[in-house]
């Protein structure tokens, strides 16, 4: 990489990047930026689940019994936590794969989100169906 061409901009590859992404060559910058945007999309998904979990806990006191409210809020918050940390590791693995030119890892987060969302929806469905009219 042409270091020192534009000093303010090329000081970027600091110790953290050197330690977490060692080996390989600098990938196509478009792919690095695309990987970053994909990470951000997962993070926003995680933030939406976080906001949803907090909303269920804070706004549904007269809708659900405490146990249901707690369970649904916890499901959403745990899913938010898993997706938030998973997003980082996926970003890192994709970046490493791009540096070394190996096949990209499959998105393990997608089935987790699908199953977690499905379980939450199923719990809500059961609660709504069993609710006294």
């Amino acid at each position, binding site marked *: 990489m042409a270091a020192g061409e534009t000093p303010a901009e090329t000081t970027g590859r600091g110790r953290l990047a050197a330690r977490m992404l060692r080996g390989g060559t600098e990938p196509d910058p478009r792919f690095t930026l695309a990987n970053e945007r994909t990470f951000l999309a997962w*993070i*926003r998904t995680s933030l939406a689940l976080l906001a949803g979990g*907090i*909303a269920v*806990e804070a706004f549904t006191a007269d809708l659900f019994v405490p146990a249901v409210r707690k369970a649904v809020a916890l499901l959403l*918050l745990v899913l938010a936590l898993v997706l938030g940390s998973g997003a980082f590791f996926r970003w890192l693995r994709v970046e490493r794969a791009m540096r070394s030119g190996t096949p990209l890892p499959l998105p393990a987060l997608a089935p987790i989100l699908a199953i977690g969302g499905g379980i939450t929806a199923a719990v809500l469905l059961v609660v709504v169906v069993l609710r006294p009219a």
Partner: protein
Amino acid sequence: MAGVHGHGDPGLQPERTSLAWSRTSLALVVASAMFLRWLPTHGWYAVSLVFSALALAIVINSTQRCRYGRGSATIRQEAGRASVGAVLALAVAVVALSAVGIVAVLVLPVP
């Protein structure tokens, strides 16, 4: 920061990436607004959550110009440079907010 140079990428990657960061900062603002609902019952716990999420959104927005310039520079140099620090910091923050939310739901008294 006077000279944020352009780039020759017709796919507008640097712009799309900084917009993705903007959307993320807005999602953080929404999440912080949810914590406001805990204000009457959880007091300072809620206040600190609201302010840390808002502070993160402000940091993201105030570094946008720098981020766009950096993205453009990587396109010009044809060498991708991963923003390890920013990505790691954001992931840690979101995980921490989720963990704090879980603790609140489990431990703090229900009003």
